């Protein structure tokens, strides 16, 4: 038996001193690196879908965005800040998410510049991981959308036609009144891609403008029958749009992963989708073409046996950048509120702003501008959703 008097002769099995650590001695396994890797990994389903919908060649644009972010990281490390955890996964996630917000025909220069700008301006100059107020992906996107206005608003939005998926060329494209949807329209000979408008771009002119500006509404029935593919195509992703916006299934898969891994919270996308659906269901829309009165509560409207109201709501949910913004870009924890309740209000605000931007004529990037606006409100939301301290 030993006692404190024996300290001079430590027995072999007992070290003289043991590790002097601080609690906790076990952790939940959460880490900055894990969070950043998961956000990057959540884009994988979308990457796969993108390669299938737009051809593997567009993956080069994703690579360019990551390369741009990497260059920015090197530069920042050299001249601005050292240290910080999770830099590699963070830059990869930044690059991949940034490329998702760009059109498939954008080329490599824009994503390269975008990735660079996202990292240097959006992340490092605005305060580094943990301090920036705006989502760096969207800061990069905003910068390129100002600098390369034309490249981000292409004349047409191509995607590969049946039998050419994955391998076809987006440049062998035909524009489309002949397009009736993925299942129904085999491509004409010599053509590998269809071009079709983004669904939201088509819907926006249906709304009577709030602040001037002119919509040129067509009858909604005609829009859904002749100008838009069936809604299921937006779920599958075979519609016009930015690279990461079209395939709702892939976006949902990525977002679900983030939620299950507790990086994102379900309250945010649910709040956003419910808000957009609710607004789309009640906001007045000109259903019967030019000169017709705007109808409130379009949800219940049926024309010729076709539920135009329901279709309108569904296209609002999946036809633009909303899903991408709410499920993949927004989960950057730095730029979202702290509590679950805060996330819910953030999501609702995101949905409301997206919808308001859309009905006022801003169809391209409405969700991204809305997300940037909500980022600005985060300190306010945090203040308003503080938890009450137990026993006060």
């Amino acid at each position, binding site marked *: 038996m030993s006692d*404190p008097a024996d300290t001079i002769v430590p027995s072999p099995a007992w070290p003289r001193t043991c590790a002097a650590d601080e609690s906790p001695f076990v952790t939940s396994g959460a880490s900055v690196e894990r969070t950043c890797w998961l956000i990057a990994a959540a884009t994988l389903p979308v990457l796969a879908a993108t390669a299938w919908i737009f051809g593997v060649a567009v993956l080069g644009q994703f690579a360019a965005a990551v390369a741009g972010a990497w260059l920015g990281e090197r530069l920042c490390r050299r001249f601005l800040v050292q240290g910080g955890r999770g830099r590699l996964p963070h830059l990869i996630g930044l690059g991949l998410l940034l490329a998702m917000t760009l059109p498939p025909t954008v080329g490599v220069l824009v994503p390269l510049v975008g990735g660079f700008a996202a990292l240097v301006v959006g992340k490092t100059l605005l305060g580094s991981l943990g301090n920036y107020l705006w989502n760096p992906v969207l800061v990069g996107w905003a910068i390129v959308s100002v600098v390369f206005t034309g490249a981000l608003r292409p004349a047409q939005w191509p995607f590969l036609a049946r039998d050419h998926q994955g391998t076809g060329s987006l440049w062998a494209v035909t524009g489309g009144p002949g397009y009736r949807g993925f299942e129904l329209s085999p491509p004409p000979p010599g053509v590998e891609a269809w071009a079709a408008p983004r669904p939201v771009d088509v819907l926006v002119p249906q709304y009577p403008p709030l602040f001037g500006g002119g919509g040129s509404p067509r009858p909604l029935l005609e829009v859904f029958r002749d100008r838009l593919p069936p809604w299921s195509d937006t779920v599958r992703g075979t519609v016009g749009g930015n690279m990461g916006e079209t395939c709702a299934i892939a976006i949902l898969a990525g977002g679900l992963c983030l939620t299950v891994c507790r990086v994102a919270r379900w309250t945010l996308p649910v709040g956003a989708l419910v808000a957009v659906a609710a607004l789309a269901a009640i906001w007045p829309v000109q259903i019967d073409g030019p000169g017709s009165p705007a109808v409130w509560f379009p949800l219940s409207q049926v024309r010729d046996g076709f539920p135009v109201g329901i279709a309108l709501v569904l296209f609002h949910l999946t036809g633009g950048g909303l899903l991408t913004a709410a499920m993949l870009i927004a989960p950057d924890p730095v730029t979202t509120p702290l509590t679950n309740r805060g996330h819910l209000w953030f999501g609702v605000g995101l949905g409301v702003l997206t919808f308001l931007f859309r009905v006022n004529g801003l169809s391209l990037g409405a969700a991204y501008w809305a997300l940037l606006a909500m980022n600005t409100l985060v300190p306010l939301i945090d203040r308003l959703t503080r938890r009450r301290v137990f026993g006060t």
Partner: protein
Amino acid sequence: MGICGKSRGWRGGVFLLPPRPDTAEHPVCSTRAPARLHIPLAQDRETAATPLVEPGHTVKPGTLLAESPDGNGRVHSPVAGVVRGVIHVDTPYRQHVPAVQVESAPPGQQEVPAGVPHTGDWPAAAELVSLAIAHGVILPDAAAVARAGAVNRIIVNGMDTAPRQTVNVRTLADHVEPLMLAAARLHAALRAQRTDVVVSRTRPDLAAVLRGLCPGRPFRVRAMMNRYPQAHPHLLVAALTGCEVPIHGSPLDCGAWVIDAVTLWNLYGAVASGSPVAWHTITLLGDAVLTPGNYRVPVGLTVRQVVERAGLAATPQRIVAGGWLNGVTVAGGNVVLTRTTRCLTVQSRSGRRPPPAACIRCGACLEACPVGLDPRALYDRAEQNRFDRAERLHPRACLDCGLCDYVCPSSLPLMRGVQWCCEHVRSG
């Protein structure tokens, strides 16, 4: 979850993994006293008790060794033997604590203390409390309980505050009959309206045994979800009564009094057989321990003496006294355990946390905090030494549960930041 409301009286908390190996599977293992003991005269940060014995005195089990000036801290000898003197030892919580060194007599001469068995009703509140203090039982809120009618509801806590510690549940399981008798007597002595016996829902067999003893007795058995830190007295009160303990208050402000199974067992020993607290039960855990489990040891053993009772499987690298989320490391095998140490983890590896990084605002600490604090804001204040407005964040509501540290992806020492704010708010 924020929008699901508070169904259990409090929000937050985390389900931690169930204990593997389950140290509550086997009864508490009794051990023999070693040849020499060092009985510390202070448990935590309080003033040390004054020794009443001189070197050369012979002591018997239960002999009073020291008493604190206010008469509340009493230290008794666990063994028969001879006092060798007063030396200074390190305890897990404090260095250089005076301790009485006792050379224990050979096992043959360790006679069992001949207390007078007491089987009748227990004395009323005031007398009961002074009896407890005389026997070294540390009762929570002793002074307030002594006032008649202060306790409306007694909560007997059969759950353990630290994850994987099983001292309470095992004590309850080992002494079901006497403890339930004690609960009934206590109920009558304090004139309580209600008594609840709380066990974890993960131990349905124990709950069933307890329920079998309920008929004809004034208490109810509650099986509760063991969402850490549910076993904290404040959260038990919140879950059972719906009343939130005020920040500067104690459960008695809600009319409830939480007594854990170990303390009730000590109280029972003091009242029923007049035996003072000189032995304590401790959960031994960790991969360097050969047979993890609960051990009953005399007060005044070193870490090494305690661990060697369970056998050593590997060279210890890290020894943790207390819970895994909020305990402290022990410097070495010669540290003397106090009787407030309920759990000891001996590991053959010392895993390091990654260095702290900037907060990424994930909000995990806010969602996990059982009392709704904002640990990251408090940590910021502590980091920048700006305590002017820390008071408004109510740092003193902190339960020191350590969950904020547990969940933080940036490995920030949040609990320490909150405690730091606490100290400044208190003194400033």
